[in-house]
Protein backbone atom coordinates (compact mmCIF):
# COMPACT_ATOMS: atom_id res chain seq x y z
CA UNK A 1 0.00 0.00 0.00
CA UNK A 2 0.90 3.58 -0.26
CA UNK A 3 2.71 3.86 3.02
CA UNK A 4 5.08 0.97 2.77
CA UNK A 5 7.79 2.97 1.07
CA UNK A 6 8.96 4.28 4.41
CA UNK A 7 11.58 1.64 4.78
CA UNK A 8 13.02 1.76 1.36
CA UNK A 9 16.16 3.81 0.99
CA UNK A 10 15.23 7.40 0.44
CA UNK A 11 15.20 8.73 -3.08
CA UNK A 12 18.07 10.94 -2.11
CA UNK A 13 18.96 13.00 -5.18
CA UNK A 14 15.76 14.88 -5.75
CA UNK A 15 14.75 15.30 -2.16
CA UNK A 16 14.28 18.86 -1.01
CA UNK A 17 17.30 19.13 1.18
CA UNK A 18 19.47 16.46 -0.33
CA UNK A 19 22.79 18.13 -0.87
CA UNK A 20 23.94 15.36 -3.19
CA UNK A 21 25.37 17.71 -5.76
CA UNK A 22 26.41 20.45 -3.46
CA UNK A 23 30.04 21.09 -2.69
CA UNK A 24 29.39 21.55 1.01
CA UNK A 25 28.45 17.91 1.32
CA UNK A 26 30.70 16.82 4.18
CA UNK A 27 29.90 19.81 6.38
CA UNK A 28 26.17 19.57 5.77
CA UNK A 29 26.20 15.87 6.34
CA UNK A 30 28.10 16.19 9.57
CA UNK A 31 25.78 18.90 10.83
CA UNK A 32 22.82 16.77 9.91
CA UNK A 33 24.22 13.73 11.67
CA UNK A 34 25.06 15.82 14.71
CA UNK A 35 21.57 17.31 14.93
CA UNK A 36 19.85 13.99 14.47
CA UNK A 37 22.14 12.38 17.01
CA UNK A 38 21.23 15.01 19.58
CA UNK A 39 17.53 14.63 18.87
CA UNK A 40 17.73 10.85 19.05
CA UNK A 41 19.71 11.08 22.26
CA UNK A 42 17.03 13.28 23.79
CA UNK A 43 14.46 10.67 22.85
CA UNK A 44 16.41 7.76 24.24
CA UNK A 45 17.89 9.27 27.40
CA UNK A 46 14.72 8.89 29.50
CA UNK A 47 14.66 5.19 28.69
CA UNK A 48 18.31 4.84 29.60
CA UNK A 49 17.71 6.78 32.81
CA UNK A 50 14.87 4.40 33.63
CA UNK A 51 17.05 1.32 33.19
CA UNK A 52 20.00 2.84 35.04
CA UNK A 53 17.81 3.80 37.98
CA UNK A 54 16.36 0.31 38.10
CA UNK A 55 19.89 -0.99 38.69
CA UNK A 56 20.86 1.35 41.50
CA UNK A 57 20.59 0.85 45.23
CA UNK A 58 18.07 2.98 47.14
CA UNK A 59 20.99 4.55 49.01
CA UNK A 60 22.61 5.65 45.80
CA UNK A 61 19.33 7.01 44.45
CA UNK A 62 18.82 9.03 47.61
CA UNK A 63 22.32 10.48 47.66
CA UNK A 64 22.56 13.95 46.18
CA UNK A 65 25.87 13.55 44.38
CA UNK A 66 25.44 10.17 42.74
CA UNK A 67 26.66 9.73 39.22
CA UNK A 68 24.65 8.70 36.19
CA UNK A 69 25.85 5.13 36.22
CA UNK A 70 25.17 2.83 39.15
CA UNK A 71 28.15 2.33 41.44
CA UNK A 72 27.25 -1.30 41.66
CA UNK A 73 24.81 -2.87 39.29
CA UNK A 74 21.94 -4.23 41.35
CA UNK A 75 20.33 -6.74 39.05
CA UNK A 76 18.65 -8.18 42.10
CA UNK A 77 16.31 -5.17 42.06
CA UNK A 78 14.25 -6.93 39.43
CA UNK A 79 13.78 -10.01 41.57
CA UNK A 80 12.91 -7.84 44.57
CA UNK A 81 10.53 -5.68 42.55
CA UNK A 82 8.66 -8.80 41.52
CA UNK A 83 8.34 -9.65 45.20
CA UNK A 84 7.34 -6.13 46.26
CA UNK A 85 4.43 -6.10 43.83
CA UNK A 86 3.01 -8.93 41.75
CA UNK A 87 4.32 -7.40 38.52
CA UNK A 88 4.50 -10.87 37.00
CA UNK A 89 0.77 -11.35 37.58
CA UNK A 90 0.03 -7.89 36.19
CA UNK A 91 2.10 -8.61 33.12
CA UNK A 92 0.39 -11.97 32.67
CA UNK A 93 -3.03 -10.27 32.88
CA UNK A 94 -2.00 -7.64 30.36
CA UNK A 95 -0.70 -10.36 28.13
CA UNK A 96 -3.93 -12.38 28.26
CA UNK A 97 -5.97 -9.29 27.47
CA UNK A 98 -3.71 -8.08 24.69
CA UNK A 99 -3.67 -11.50 23.04
CA UNK A 100 -7.45 -11.83 23.31
CA UNK A 101 -7.95 -8.39 21.82
CA UNK A 102 -5.54 -9.16 19.03
CA UNK A 103 -7.17 -12.45 18.10
CA UNK A 104 -10.73 -11.12 18.32
CA UNK A 105 -10.00 -7.91 16.47
CA UNK A 106 -8.15 -9.63 13.66
CA UNK A 107 -10.91 -12.20 13.20
CA UNK A 108 -14.00 -10.04 13.52
CA UNK A 109 -12.65 -6.91 11.83
CA UNK A 110 -11.12 -8.76 8.90
CA UNK A 111 -14.43 -10.48 8.21
CA UNK A 112 -16.29 -7.20 8.37
CA UNK A 113 -13.65 -5.41 6.32
CA UNK A 114 -13.76 -8.12 3.71
CA UNK A 115 -17.53 -8.03 3.41
CA UNK A 116 -17.62 -4.24 3.24
CA UNK A 117 -14.94 -4.20 0.57
CA UNK A 118 -16.07 -7.00 -1.67
CA UNK A 119 -19.68 -7.89 -1.15
CA UNK A 120 -22.54 -5.61 -1.98
CA UNK A 121 -25.62 -6.04 0.09
CA UNK A 122 -28.37 -3.74 1.12
CA UNK A 123 -27.02 -1.04 3.37
CA UNK A 124 -23.39 -2.04 3.01
CA UNK A 125 -22.37 1.45 2.01
CA UNK A 126 -24.26 3.04 4.89
CA UNK A 127 -22.65 0.56 7.22
CA UNK A 128 -19.22 1.54 6.02
CA UNK A 129 -19.90 5.19 6.72
CA UNK A 130 -21.21 4.28 10.15
CA UNK A 131 -17.90 2.58 10.90
CA UNK A 132 -16.04 5.67 9.72
CA UNK A 133 -18.22 7.82 11.95
CA UNK A 134 -17.58 5.50 14.89
CA UNK A 135 -13.89 6.06 14.29
CA UNK A 136 -14.30 9.71 15.17
CA UNK A 137 -16.12 9.37 18.48
CA UNK A 138 -13.75 10.49 21.23
CA UNK A 139 -12.95 7.98 23.94
CA UNK A 140 -14.33 10.21 26.65
CA UNK A 141 -17.78 10.39 25.12
CA UNK A 142 -17.99 6.63 25.25
CA UNK A 143 -16.12 5.62 28.34
CA UNK A 144 -18.69 6.60 30.93
CA UNK A 145 -21.72 4.88 29.33
CA UNK A 146 -19.50 1.91 28.53
CA UNK A 147 -18.74 1.69 32.21
CA UNK A 148 -22.46 1.84 33.02
CA UNK A 149 -23.24 -0.89 30.49
CA UNK A 150 -20.60 -3.08 32.10
CA UNK A 151 -21.90 -2.27 35.55
CA UNK A 152 -25.52 -3.05 34.64
CA UNK A 153 -24.84 -6.02 32.37
CA UNK A 154 -27.94 -8.17 32.85
CA UNK A 155 -27.57 -11.55 34.48
CA UNK A 156 -23.90 -11.09 35.26
CA UNK A 157 -22.11 -10.69 38.56
CA UNK A 158 -25.29 -11.08 40.58
CA UNK A 159 -27.35 -8.75 38.40
CA UNK A 160 -30.95 -9.62 37.61
CA UNK A 161 -32.38 -9.45 34.11
CA UNK A 162 -32.71 -5.68 34.43
CA UNK A 163 -29.11 -5.34 35.49
CA UNK A 164 -29.85 -4.50 39.08
CA UNK A 165 -28.60 -5.92 42.32
CA UNK A 166 -25.05 -7.00 41.56
CA UNK A 167 -21.93 -5.57 40.05
CA UNK A 168 -22.36 -6.85 36.50
CA UNK A 169 -19.13 -7.38 34.62
CA UNK A 170 -17.13 -5.16 36.95
CA UNK A 171 -13.99 -6.87 38.17
CA UNK A 172 -14.16 -9.60 35.56
CA UNK A 173 -12.27 -10.68 32.50
CA UNK A 174 -15.38 -9.91 30.46
CA UNK A 175 -15.12 -6.23 31.23
CA UNK A 176 -11.43 -6.20 30.44
CA UNK A 177 -11.73 -8.06 27.17
CA UNK A 178 -15.11 -7.61 25.48
CA UNK A 179 -15.73 -3.85 25.21
CA UNK A 180 -12.39 -3.08 23.56
CA UNK A 181 -12.20 -6.22 21.49
CA UNK A 182 -13.16 -4.89 18.06
CA UNK A 183 -12.14 -1.48 16.74
CA UNK A 184 -13.73 0.37 13.83
CA UNK A 185 -10.25 1.37 12.80
CA UNK A 186 -9.31 -2.25 12.18
CA UNK A 187 -12.47 -2.75 10.12
CA UNK A 188 -11.54 0.32 8.12
CA UNK A 189 -7.94 -0.75 7.60
CA UNK A 190 -8.88 -4.26 6.51
CA UNK A 191 -11.42 -2.88 4.06
CA UNK A 192 -8.77 -0.74 2.43
CA UNK A 193 -6.48 -3.73 1.99
CA UNK A 194 -9.16 -6.04 0.61
CA UNK A 195 -10.31 -3.38 -1.87
CA UNK A 196 -7.05 -3.63 -3.75
CA UNK A 197 -7.29 -7.33 -4.57
CA UNK A 198 -8.17 -8.34 -8.13
CA UNK A 199 -11.68 -9.57 -8.85
CA UNK A 200 -10.36 -12.49 -10.88
CA UNK A 201 -9.15 -14.13 -7.72
CA UNK A 202 -12.53 -14.49 -6.13
CA UNK A 203 -14.22 -15.27 -9.42
CA UNK A 204 -11.91 -18.18 -10.02
CA UNK A 205 -12.55 -19.41 -6.52
CA UNK A 206 -16.28 -19.11 -7.01
CA UNK A 207 -16.08 -21.09 -10.24
CA UNK A 208 -14.32 -23.78 -8.25
CA UNK A 209 -17.40 -23.88 -6.07
CA UNK A 210 -15.96 -22.33 -2.94
CA UNK A 211 -18.38 -20.71 -0.49
CA UNK A 212 -18.02 -17.08 0.54
CA UNK A 213 -16.40 -17.85 3.89
CA UNK A 214 -13.89 -20.10 2.24
CA UNK A 215 -13.09 -17.44 -0.34
CA UNK A 216 -12.52 -14.97 2.45
CA UNK A 217 -10.47 -17.30 4.60
CA UNK A 218 -8.54 -19.34 2.06
CA UNK A 219 -8.20 -17.17 -1.01
CA UNK A 220 -8.40 -13.49 -0.14
CA UNK A 221 -7.02 -13.23 3.38
CA UNK A 222 -3.68 -14.86 2.61
CA UNK A 223 -3.20 -12.06 0.05
CA UNK A 224 -3.38 -9.37 2.69
CA UNK A 225 -1.04 -10.82 5.31
CA UNK A 226 0.53 -7.40 5.93
CA UNK A 227 -2.89 -6.12 6.97
CA UNK A 228 -3.19 -8.93 9.47
CA UNK A 229 0.25 -8.31 10.91
CA UNK A 230 -0.33 -4.55 11.05
CA UNK A 231 -3.67 -4.80 12.80
CA UNK A 232 -2.37 -7.46 15.16
CA UNK A 233 0.62 -5.37 16.22
CA UNK A 234 -1.38 -2.16 16.63
CA UNK A 235 -4.08 -3.93 18.60
CA UNK A 236 -1.57 -5.59 20.87
CA UNK A 237 0.21 -2.30 21.41
CA UNK A 238 -2.85 -0.26 22.34
CA UNK A 239 -4.19 -3.06 24.51
CA UNK A 240 -0.92 -3.47 26.39
CA UNK A 241 -0.63 0.27 26.87
CA UNK A 242 -4.23 0.88 27.86
CA UNK A 243 -4.70 2.45 31.25
CA UNK A 244 -8.01 4.21 31.83
CA UNK A 245 -10.37 1.36 31.02
CA UNK A 246 -8.73 -1.32 33.19
CA UNK A 247 -8.37 1.31 35.91
CA UNK A 248 -12.11 1.87 35.85
CA UNK A 249 -13.43 -1.66 35.67
CA UNK A 250 -11.16 -3.58 38.06
CA UNK A 251 -10.43 -3.29 41.74
CA UNK A 252 -8.93 -6.60 42.74
CA UNK A 253 -5.20 -7.03 42.66
CA UNK A 254 -5.44 -10.35 40.82
CA UNK A 255 -7.09 -8.72 37.79
CA UNK A 256 -4.85 -5.68 37.64
CA UNK A 257 -3.01 -5.01 34.42
CA UNK A 258 0.58 -3.86 34.27
CA UNK A 259 -0.07 -0.16 33.62
CA UNK A 260 -2.56 0.12 36.47
CA UNK A 261 -0.28 -1.97 38.67
CA UNK A 262 2.52 0.51 38.09
CA UNK A 263 0.36 3.51 38.93
CA UNK A 264 -0.85 1.86 42.13
CA UNK A 265 2.69 0.87 43.05
CA UNK A 266 3.70 4.48 42.61
CA UNK A 267 1.13 5.78 45.08
CA UNK A 268 1.68 3.00 47.58
CA UNK A 269 5.45 3.01 47.48
CA UNK A 270 6.06 6.51 46.25
CA UNK A 271 9.75 6.75 46.93
CA UNK A 272 10.99 3.32 45.94
CA UNK A 273 12.29 4.52 42.63
CA UNK A 274 14.53 1.53 42.02
CA UNK A 275 11.57 -0.85 42.19
CA UNK A 276 9.27 1.47 40.29
CA UNK A 277 11.76 1.86 37.46
CA UNK A 278 12.38 -1.91 37.43
CA UNK A 279 8.63 -2.44 37.06
CA UNK A 280 8.40 0.24 34.39
CA UNK A 281 11.27 -1.35 32.49
CA UNK A 282 9.47 -4.69 32.62
CA UNK A 283 6.28 -3.04 31.36
CA UNK A 284 8.13 -1.28 28.55
CA UNK A 285 10.27 -4.16 27.37
CA UNK A 286 7.67 -6.24 25.51
CA UNK A 287 6.54 -3.26 23.44
CA UNK A 288 10.08 -2.21 22.61
CA UNK A 289 10.99 -5.73 21.52
CA UNK A 290 7.80 -6.12 19.52
CA UNK A 291 8.37 -2.74 17.91
CA UNK A 292 11.93 -3.57 16.93
CA UNK A 293 10.79 -6.84 15.38
CA UNK A 294 7.70 -5.58 13.62
CA UNK A 295 8.89 -2.06 12.85
CA UNK A 296 7.87 -2.14 9.23
CA UNK A 297 4.26 -2.90 10.08
CA UNK A 298 4.12 -0.50 12.99
CA UNK A 299 5.37 2.30 10.82
CA UNK A 300 2.89 1.47 8.12
CA UNK A 301 0.03 1.09 10.54
CA UNK A 302 0.77 4.25 12.45
CA UNK A 303 1.20 6.28 9.32
CA UNK A 304 -2.19 5.06 8.22
CA UNK A 305 -3.81 5.36 11.59
CA UNK A 306 -2.51 8.71 12.59
CA UNK A 307 -4.33 8.29 15.82
CA UNK A 308 -4.49 5.72 18.52
Amino acid at each position, binding site marked *: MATTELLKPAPAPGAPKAPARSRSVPVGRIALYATLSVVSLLMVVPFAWMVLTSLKTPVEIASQDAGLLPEQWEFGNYVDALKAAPFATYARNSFIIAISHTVLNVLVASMAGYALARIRFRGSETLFYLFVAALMIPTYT*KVLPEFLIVRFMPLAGGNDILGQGGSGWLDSWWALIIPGAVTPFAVFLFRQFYLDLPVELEEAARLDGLGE*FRIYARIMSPQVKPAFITVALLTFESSWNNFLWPLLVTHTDSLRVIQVGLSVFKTENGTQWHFLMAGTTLATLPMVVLFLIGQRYFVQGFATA*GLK
Partner: protein
Amino acid sequence: MGATTVVKARPARPPSPPETSAPRRTGRVPTGPGRRRRRAGMLMVAPALLHASLWIGLPVVVSVALAFTKYDVLTAPEFVGLANFRDMLDDAVFRKSVVNTLLYTFFTVPFGMALGLLVALALHTGLKARGIFRTAVFLPQVTATVAIALVWLWIYNPGNGLLNMMLSFLGIDGPAWLSSTTWALPSVILVGIWQGIGMKMLIYLAALQSLPRELYEAASVDGASRVRQFFSITLPLLKPATFFVLITSMISAFQSFDQIYILTDGGPANSTTMMTYEIYKSAFREFRVGYASAQSLVLFVLLMGFTLVNKRIMGGSRGHN
Protein backbone atom coordinates in the same frame (compact mmCIF):
# COMPACT_ATOMS: atom_id res chain seq x y z
CA MET B 1 -0.35 12.77 0.22
CA GLY B 2 1.43 9.57 1.21
CA ALA B 3 -0.15 8.60 4.46
CA THR B 4 -3.38 10.27 3.72
CA THR B 5 -4.10 8.54 0.48
CA VAL B 6 -4.79 5.38 2.35
CA VAL B 7 -7.00 6.99 4.89
CA LYS B 8 -9.10 8.87 2.45
CA ALA B 9 -12.47 7.24 2.20
CA ARG B 10 -12.81 6.14 -1.33
CA PRO B 11 -15.96 7.32 -2.98
CA ALA B 12 -18.32 4.54 -3.82
CA ARG B 13 -16.29 2.19 -5.89
CA PRO B 14 -17.13 2.12 -9.54
CA PRO B 15 -19.51 -0.76 -10.24
CA SER B 16 -17.23 -3.01 -8.28
CA PRO B 17 -17.03 -6.77 -8.25
CA PRO B 18 -19.87 -7.50 -10.54
CA GLU B 19 -22.21 -9.87 -8.86
CA THR B 20 -21.68 -12.61 -11.30
CA SER B 21 -24.94 -14.41 -11.02
CA ALA B 22 -28.45 -13.25 -10.23
CA PRO B 23 -28.66 -9.95 -12.06
CA ARG B 24 -29.52 -7.43 -9.44
CA ARG B 25 -32.34 -5.67 -11.18
CA THR B 26 -34.52 -8.61 -12.00
CA GLY B 27 -36.61 -8.77 -8.90
CA ARG B 28 -36.94 -8.12 -5.22
CA VAL B 29 -36.33 -11.73 -4.31
CA PRO B 30 -33.02 -12.71 -5.77
CA THR B 31 -32.23 -16.35 -5.54
CA GLY B 32 -29.21 -18.48 -6.05
CA PRO B 33 -25.57 -17.64 -5.45
CA GLY B 34 -26.03 -13.86 -5.52
CA ARG B 35 -28.39 -14.03 -2.65
CA ARG B 36 -26.22 -16.46 -0.79
CA ARG B 37 -23.36 -14.11 -1.31
CA ARG B 38 -25.21 -11.14 0.08
CA ARG B 39 -26.29 -13.13 3.07
CA ALA B 40 -22.74 -14.24 3.69
CA GLY B 41 -21.71 -10.60 3.53
CA MET B 42 -24.22 -9.57 6.14
CA LEU B 43 -23.23 -12.47 8.35
CA MET B 44 -19.60 -11.45 8.14
CA VAL B 45 -20.29 -7.88 9.15
CA ALA B 46 -22.72 -8.88 11.89
CA PRO B 47 -20.26 -9.53 14.75
CA ALA B 48 -18.43 -6.23 14.22
CA LEU B 49 -21.70 -4.38 13.83
CA LEU B 50 -23.13 -5.91 16.97
CA HIS B 51 -20.02 -4.99 18.90
CA ALA B 52 -20.00 -1.43 17.61
CA SER B 53 -23.69 -0.96 18.33
CA LEU B 54 -23.32 -2.06 21.92
CA TRP B 55 -19.99 -0.41 22.72
CA ILE B 56 -20.05 2.70 20.54
CA GLY B 57 -23.59 3.39 19.30
CA LEU B 58 -25.41 2.80 22.54
CA PRO B 59 -22.83 4.71 24.65
CA VAL B 60 -23.12 7.78 22.45
CA VAL B 61 -26.90 7.79 22.82
CA VAL B 62 -26.69 7.17 26.57
CA SER B 63 -24.07 9.88 26.92
CA VAL B 64 -26.25 12.49 25.26
CA ALA B 65 -29.27 11.45 27.30
CA LEU B 66 -27.42 11.46 30.62
CA ALA B 67 -26.05 14.93 29.99
CA PHE B 68 -29.49 16.30 30.79
CA THR B 69 -29.92 14.36 34.01
CA LYS B 70 -28.74 14.22 37.55
CA TYR B 71 -27.46 10.74 38.13
CA ASP B 72 -25.37 9.10 40.84
CA VAL B 73 -25.57 5.46 39.63
CA LEU B 74 -27.40 4.40 42.80
CA THR B 75 -30.71 6.16 42.26
CA ALA B 76 -32.53 6.53 38.96
CA PRO B 77 -31.47 9.41 36.71
CA GLU B 78 -33.53 12.55 37.10
CA PHE B 79 -34.12 14.93 34.21
CA VAL B 80 -32.71 18.37 34.96
CA GLY B 81 -32.70 20.03 31.56
CA LEU B 82 -29.73 22.31 30.99
CA ALA B 83 -28.75 22.53 34.66
CA ASN B 84 -25.52 20.60 34.11
CA PHE B 85 -24.44 23.02 31.42
CA ARG B 86 -25.29 25.98 33.61
CA ASP B 87 -23.29 24.44 36.44
CA MET B 88 -20.35 24.10 34.13
CA LEU B 89 -20.36 27.83 33.46
CA ASP B 90 -20.12 28.47 37.20
CA ASP B 91 -17.50 25.80 37.72
CA ALA B 92 -14.18 27.63 37.98
CA VAL B 93 -12.20 24.39 38.02
CA PHE B 94 -13.87 23.18 34.84
CA ARG B 95 -13.19 26.51 33.18
CA LYS B 96 -9.60 26.16 34.25
CA SER B 97 -9.52 22.68 32.75
CA VAL B 98 -10.79 24.01 29.43
CA VAL B 99 -8.08 26.67 29.40
CA ASN B 100 -5.43 24.11 30.32
CA THR B 101 -6.62 21.71 27.64
CA LEU B 102 -6.43 24.50 25.06
CA LEU B 103 -2.99 25.57 26.29
CA TYR B 104 -1.73 22.01 26.27
CA THR B 105 -3.05 21.49 22.75
CA PHE B 106 -1.80 24.86 21.55
CA PHE B 107 1.74 24.11 22.70
CA THR B 108 2.10 20.40 22.07
CA VAL B 109 0.54 20.32 18.62
CA PRO B 110 2.21 23.15 16.66
CA PHE B 111 5.60 22.75 18.37
CA GLY B 112 5.46 19.01 17.99
CA MET B 113 4.51 19.42 14.34
CA ALA B 114 7.35 21.81 13.61
CA LEU B 115 9.86 19.51 15.29
CA GLY B 116 8.34 16.47 13.61
CA LEU B 117 8.61 18.13 10.22
CA LEU B 118 12.22 19.16 10.84
CA VAL B 119 13.22 15.66 11.84
CA ALA B 120 11.31 14.23 8.86
CA LEU B 121 13.14 16.62 6.51
CA ALA B 122 16.46 15.63 8.02
CA LEU B 123 15.66 11.95 7.68
CA HIS B 124 14.46 12.44 4.13
CA THR B 125 17.93 13.33 2.94
CA GLY B 126 18.85 9.68 2.57
CA LEU B 127 21.27 9.25 5.42
CA LYS B 128 22.69 5.80 5.97
CA ALA B 129 21.68 5.62 9.60
CA ARG B 130 18.18 6.95 9.11
CA GLY B 131 16.63 3.72 10.33
CA ILE B 132 18.31 4.07 13.71
CA PHE B 133 17.34 7.72 14.07
CA ARG B 134 13.78 7.07 13.07
CA THR B 135 13.51 4.20 15.52
CA ALA B 136 14.85 6.36 18.34
CA VAL B 137 12.44 9.19 17.62
CA PHE B 138 9.51 6.87 17.28
CA LEU B 139 10.21 4.77 20.36
CA PRO B 140 8.22 6.91 22.83
CA GLN B 141 5.18 6.50 20.62
CA VAL B 142 4.92 2.76 21.12
CA THR B 143 5.58 3.00 24.83
CA ALA B 144 2.68 3.30 27.25
CA THR B 145 2.00 6.84 28.37
CA VAL B 146 1.84 5.56 31.94
CA ALA B 147 5.38 4.21 31.72
CA ILE B 148 6.58 7.39 30.02
CA ALA B 149 4.95 9.54 32.67
CA LEU B 150 6.51 7.50 35.47
CA VAL B 151 9.95 7.94 33.97
CA TRP B 152 9.41 11.68 33.60
CA LEU B 153 8.08 11.85 37.13
CA TRP B 154 11.49 10.59 38.16
CA ILE B 155 13.31 12.92 35.76
CA TYR B 156 11.41 15.87 37.24
CA ASN B 157 12.06 14.72 40.79
CA PRO B 158 13.26 17.89 42.52
CA GLY B 159 15.93 16.30 44.74
CA ASN B 160 17.88 13.96 42.51
CA GLY B 161 15.95 13.65 39.29
CA LEU B 162 17.91 13.79 36.06
CA LEU B 163 16.79 17.27 35.08
CA ASN B 164 17.85 19.04 38.24
CA MET B 165 21.00 16.96 38.37
CA MET B 166 21.92 18.28 34.93
CA LEU B 167 20.97 21.80 35.88
CA SER B 168 23.09 21.68 39.00
CA PHE B 169 26.10 20.80 36.83
CA LEU B 170 25.46 24.15 35.20
CA GLY B 171 25.12 25.76 38.59
CA ILE B 172 21.36 26.22 38.28
CA ASP B 173 19.04 25.36 41.10
CA GLY B 174 16.10 23.73 39.37
CA PRO B 175 12.59 24.19 40.74
CA ALA B 176 10.30 21.45 42.02
CA TRP B 177 8.91 21.09 38.54
CA LEU B 178 5.65 19.29 39.09
CA SER B 179 4.67 20.82 42.38
CA SER B 180 5.12 24.41 41.26
CA THR B 181 2.06 26.12 39.88
CA THR B 182 4.31 27.97 37.44
CA TRP B 183 6.23 25.01 36.14
CA ALA B 184 3.79 22.11 36.34
CA LEU B 185 1.89 22.80 33.12
CA PRO B 186 5.01 23.54 31.06
CA SER B 187 6.53 20.33 32.42
CA VAL B 188 3.51 18.32 31.34
CA ILE B 189 3.55 20.03 27.95
CA LEU B 190 7.21 19.17 27.46
CA VAL B 191 6.44 15.49 27.97
CA GLY B 192 3.57 15.79 25.50
CA ILE B 193 5.80 17.30 22.83
CA TRP B 194 8.52 14.77 23.49
CA GLN B 195 6.23 11.79 23.19
CA GLY B 196 4.36 13.02 20.14
CA ILE B 197 7.20 13.96 17.82
CA GLY B 198 7.63 10.42 16.51
CA MET B 199 4.12 10.15 15.16
CA LYS B 200 4.19 13.52 13.45
CA MET B 201 7.62 12.85 12.01
CA LEU B 202 6.43 9.56 10.60
CA ILE B 203 3.43 10.95 8.77
CA TYR B 204 5.51 13.79 7.36
CA LEU B 205 8.19 11.36 6.28
CA ALA B 206 5.62 9.24 4.46
CA ALA B 207 4.26 12.35 2.78
CA LEU B 208 7.70 13.65 1.80
CA GLN B 209 8.52 10.39 0.11
CA SER B 210 5.53 10.66 -2.14
CA LEU B 211 6.36 14.14 -3.45
CA PRO B 212 7.16 14.28 -7.16
CA ARG B 213 10.88 14.71 -7.79
CA GLU B 214 10.44 16.41 -11.14
CA LEU B 215 9.20 19.59 -9.50
CA TYR B 216 12.42 19.98 -7.56
CA GLU B 217 14.52 19.26 -10.62
CA ALA B 218 12.62 21.89 -12.55
CA ALA B 219 12.95 24.34 -9.70
CA SER B 220 16.70 23.74 -9.46
CA VAL B 221 17.06 24.35 -13.15
CA ASP B 222 15.18 27.61 -12.67
CA GLY B 223 17.64 28.49 -9.97
CA ALA B 224 15.34 28.40 -6.98
CA SER B 225 17.25 28.15 -3.74
CA ARG B 226 16.66 25.26 -1.43
CA VAL B 227 14.87 27.47 1.09
CA ARG B 228 12.71 28.84 -1.68
CA GLN B 229 11.96 25.31 -2.86
CA PHE B 230 10.92 24.36 0.62
CA PHE B 231 8.48 27.22 0.98
CA SER B 232 7.12 27.22 -2.57
CA ILE B 233 7.00 23.52 -3.28
CA THR B 234 7.41 21.29 -0.26
CA LEU B 235 5.23 23.10 2.21
CA PRO B 236 2.24 23.58 -0.13
CA LEU B 237 2.47 19.98 -1.25
CA LEU B 238 2.55 18.86 2.36
CA LYS B 239 -0.74 20.57 3.08
CA PRO B 240 -2.87 17.43 3.13
CA ALA B 241 -0.37 15.75 5.42
CA THR B 242 -0.24 18.83 7.63
CA PHE B 243 -3.99 18.85 7.88
CA PHE B 244 -4.01 15.20 8.77
CA VAL B 245 -1.30 15.56 11.41
CA LEU B 246 -2.99 18.62 12.85
CA ILE B 247 -6.38 17.01 13.23
CA THR B 248 -5.15 13.71 14.59
CA SER B 249 -2.70 15.30 17.04
CA MET B 250 -5.35 17.71 18.22
CA ILE B 251 -7.77 14.90 18.84
CA SER B 252 -5.24 13.03 20.93
CA ALA B 253 -3.99 16.16 22.72
CA PHE B 254 -7.54 17.03 23.73
CA GLN B 255 -7.89 13.58 25.22
CA SER B 256 -4.69 13.40 27.22
CA PHE B 257 -5.35 11.78 30.53
CA ASP B 258 -2.77 9.18 31.54
CA GLN B 259 0.08 11.66 31.87
CA ILE B 260 -1.99 13.99 34.04
CA TYR B 261 -3.12 11.13 36.24
CA ILE B 262 0.45 9.98 36.82
CA LEU B 263 2.38 13.24 36.80
CA THR B 264 0.26 15.73 38.72
CA ASP B 265 -3.26 14.50 39.47
CA GLY B 266 -4.38 17.81 38.04
CA GLY B 267 -2.49 19.77 40.66
CA PRO B 268 -0.97 21.77 42.15
CA ALA B 269 -4.03 23.92 42.73
CA ASN B 270 -5.68 22.63 39.53
CA SER B 271 -2.88 24.17 37.48
CA THR B 272 -2.63 21.11 35.23
CA THR B 273 -6.13 19.72 35.26
CA MET B 274 -7.60 18.87 31.85
CA MET B 275 -11.12 18.35 30.60
CA THR B 276 -10.65 14.60 30.51
CA TYR B 277 -9.39 14.66 34.06
CA GLU B 278 -12.41 16.67 35.22
CA ILE B 279 -14.73 14.21 33.47
CA TYR B 280 -12.99 11.38 35.25
CA LYS B 281 -13.20 13.18 38.58
CA SER B 282 -16.89 14.09 38.22
CA ALA B 283 -17.84 10.57 37.22
CA PHE B 284 -15.65 8.30 39.27
CA ARG B 285 -14.73 10.31 42.33
CA GLU B 286 -17.83 12.45 42.85
CA PHE B 287 -20.30 10.13 41.15
CA ARG B 288 -21.92 13.01 39.30
CA VAL B 289 -22.48 10.94 36.20
CA GLY B 290 -24.93 13.33 34.54
CA TYR B 291 -22.56 16.24 35.02
CA ALA B 292 -19.64 14.20 33.69
CA SER B 293 -21.70 13.28 30.61
CA ALA B 294 -22.42 16.93 29.99
CA GLN B 295 -18.71 17.69 30.31
CA SER B 296 -17.83 14.93 27.87
CA LEU B 297 -20.38 16.35 25.46
CA VAL B 298 -18.69 19.74 25.65
CA LEU B 299 -15.37 18.04 24.93
CA PHE B 300 -16.88 16.32 21.93
CA VAL B 301 -18.47 19.49 20.57
CA LEU B 302 -15.25 21.46 21.05
CA LEU B 303 -13.28 18.80 19.21
CA MET B 304 -15.76 18.71 16.35
CA GLY B 305 -15.79 22.49 16.21
CA PHE B 306 -12.02 22.70 16.01
CA THR B 307 -11.93 20.02 13.37
CA LEU B 308 -14.41 21.88 11.21
CA VAL B 309 -12.68 25.22 11.69
CA ASN B 310 -9.38 23.66 10.73
CA LYS B 311 -10.93 22.14 7.70
CA ARG B 312 -12.18 25.57 6.69
CA ILE B 313 -8.87 27.27 7.25
CA MET B 314 -6.87 24.57 5.56
CA GLY B 315 -9.46 24.63 2.81
CA GLY B 316 -9.02 20.92 2.49
CA SER B 317 -11.71 18.40 2.13
CA ARG B 318 -8.78 16.11 1.56
CA GLY B 319 -6.85 14.33 4.24
CA HIS B 320 -10.14 12.88 5.31
CA ASN B 321 -10.12 11.93 8.91
